[in-house]
């Protein structure tokens, strides 16, 4: 472990794990689990959306495939969700690779529209295939605690598991970003034709990154199903879910392994607190999501991460902030 950043990530993980073992509050634990889950899902979205520039609005489809595959296998055949999770991931990856291959020529807005259609098709399919998915009624997963069943009495166990998932995915993304594949993906995102003309395998890498992204999104889906113990089309396969993954990654900062983590740490506790404390106004949390998203897109197109790093690390950034102390910093000057 000569890599300093990896050491810091693992240290942060260890501190968090110890902190969780000291927390007894159920609301706080719930917050940790959901923050971890959404950090994981946004990190997975980021592999496609942030690195290779495939802005997907259909990732709810993969989330749904993961949740439904493991739950159906578990409820009908008793197969452990740990295995079901991998099967769901592989199915989602195959669907994603094929779909990304089909939509290879679509760019930007059109790719977003095509993925939106994929999510909607999955929604309708899950409502209509009542013999398999039980339709709109949803599937109740029986509560039988046990490690093999991936169901636990204590929320702390869920928190340990999801944080470990987040750690592994973050390290995975970090090493991808550092490897030549990271540079290939950035090249494709910034100028696909130029990248291909220089020998980058555009189609394979786009299909690959979309498949990897879908694989991890499906794993997040399984974890969600095992945590909530109830799945139905309206909670899994809606556009908002896909949008939420994207929002978290974009607000944190796309194209970096820390961006989705930051986005999730800011947004999920905020929305949970809003929902818990101001529960007489429904919709307030989503309103704030939308406002933050618009503000970030308009004023900090690279997300909050570069902005925060600039304030804390970069001396020129610090000076600029001192020069314009009362929010007069002209942030969109470079646009």
């Amino acid at each position: 472990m000569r890599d300093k950043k990896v050491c810091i990530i693992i240290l942060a993980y260890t501190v968090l794990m110890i902190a969780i073992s000291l927390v007894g509050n159920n609301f706080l634990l719930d917050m940790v689990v959901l923050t971890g889950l959404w950090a994981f899902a946004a990190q997975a979205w980021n592999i496609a959306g942030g690195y290779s520039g495939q802005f997907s609005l259909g990732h709810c489809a993969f989330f749904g495939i993961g949740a439904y595959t493991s739950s159906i296998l578990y409820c009908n055949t008793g197969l452990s969700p740990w295995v079901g999770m991998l099967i769901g991931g592989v199915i989602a990856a195959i669907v994603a690779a094929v779909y990304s291959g089909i939509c290879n020529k679509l760019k930007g807005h059109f790719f977003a529209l095509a993925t939106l259609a994929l999510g909607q098709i999955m929604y309708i399919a899950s409502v209509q295939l009542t013999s398999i998915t039980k339709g709109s009624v949803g599937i109740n997963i029986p509560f039988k605690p046990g490690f093999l069943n991936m169901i636990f009495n204590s929320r702390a166990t869920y928190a340990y598991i999801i944080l470990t998932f987040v750690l592994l995915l973050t390290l995975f993304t970090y090493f991808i970003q550092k490897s030549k594949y990271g540079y290939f993906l950035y090249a494709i995102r910034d100028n696909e034709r130029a990248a291909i003309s220089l020998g980058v395998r555009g189609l394979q890498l786009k299909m690959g990154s979309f498949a990897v992204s879908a694989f991890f999104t499906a794993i997040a889906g399984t974890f969600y199903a095992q945590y909530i113990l109830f799945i139905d089309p309206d909670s899994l396969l809606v556009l908002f879910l896909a949008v939420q993954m994207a929002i978290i990654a974009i607000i944190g900062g796309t194209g970096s392994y820390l961006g989705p983590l930051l986005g999730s740490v800011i947004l999920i506790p905020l929305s949970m607190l809003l929902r818990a404390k101001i529960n007489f106004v429904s919709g307030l949390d989503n309103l704030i999501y939308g406002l933050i998203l618009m503000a970030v897109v308009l004023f900090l197109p690279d997300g909050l991460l570069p902005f925060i790093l600039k304030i804390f690390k970069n001396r020129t950034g610090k000076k600029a902030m001192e020069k314009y102390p009362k929010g007069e910093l002209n942030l969109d000057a470079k646009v």
Partner: protein
Amino acid sequence: MFLQNLVNGIFVGAMYGLTASGLSLIFGVLNIVNFAHGEFIMIGMYITYFAGALLGVNPILSVLISVPVMLILGVLVERFLINRIINSSDMAQIFLTVGLGLVLSNLALIFIGGNYYSVRVGYATESLKLGSLLIGKASFLTFIVTVITFIVVSMMLKYTFIGKAIRATSQDRTTAQLMGVNTGFIYTVAFGLGMVLVAISAALLTIMFPVYPNIGNHFVVICFVIVVLGGLGSLPGALVGGVIVGVIEILCGYYFSMGWKDVVPFLVLIICLLVRPQGIFGTRT
């Protein structure tokens, strides 16, 4: 029965086409897919509903209120939001309008609430008999209004100076600018005109559908399918695409199953994106 379904499909489809035309116009000129389109439809429907409920205005006549309101809203949104990202990355363009949609639908949820409201008009359940065909009075009325709107807007785009400027900007913004067209102003006009079309179509939709904060999601995906099918930016394309989607939907609902008919527009969308991404009336750029 086939003929009856066909006619129903055309009527529903023409209305879908009008709903999608604003989206198409905005894309054609500004090159931005407005993901908040559904939420603008929702606002238009609420205006029509409240005009009827509080002032007793007929849904069709409510456009006298909703058109100016939506026009002003459109101009403000374009000036203060869309204008700033017109040259930004795809990501900024997609997610600014996604964020705007979230804000609008949740504002409606907070201030108006999640209840379903619907307008009652006497003629909604009556129908005309034309030979063996039965035509709902409401759908006949919406069809007439749709056709008139399409003709007026097409004439405007074709013959007036501002219409010509809009078409020029949509074909080639740089050249239009070189020819002395104030493209910044045209963007605002086009967005405002798109909102006017949304206001008219929303007034018609209110006759047949209840309004609630998330109603936009129901229409917006159909609108996306229609504009991709007809060609993004093409007004006649929106009408033709709308009719095609309407007919396919009604026929599939009748011959296959009601539940699966909603999948068909998406399959059409995917096939269309693959085979002819520029749409029926679109031109390749």
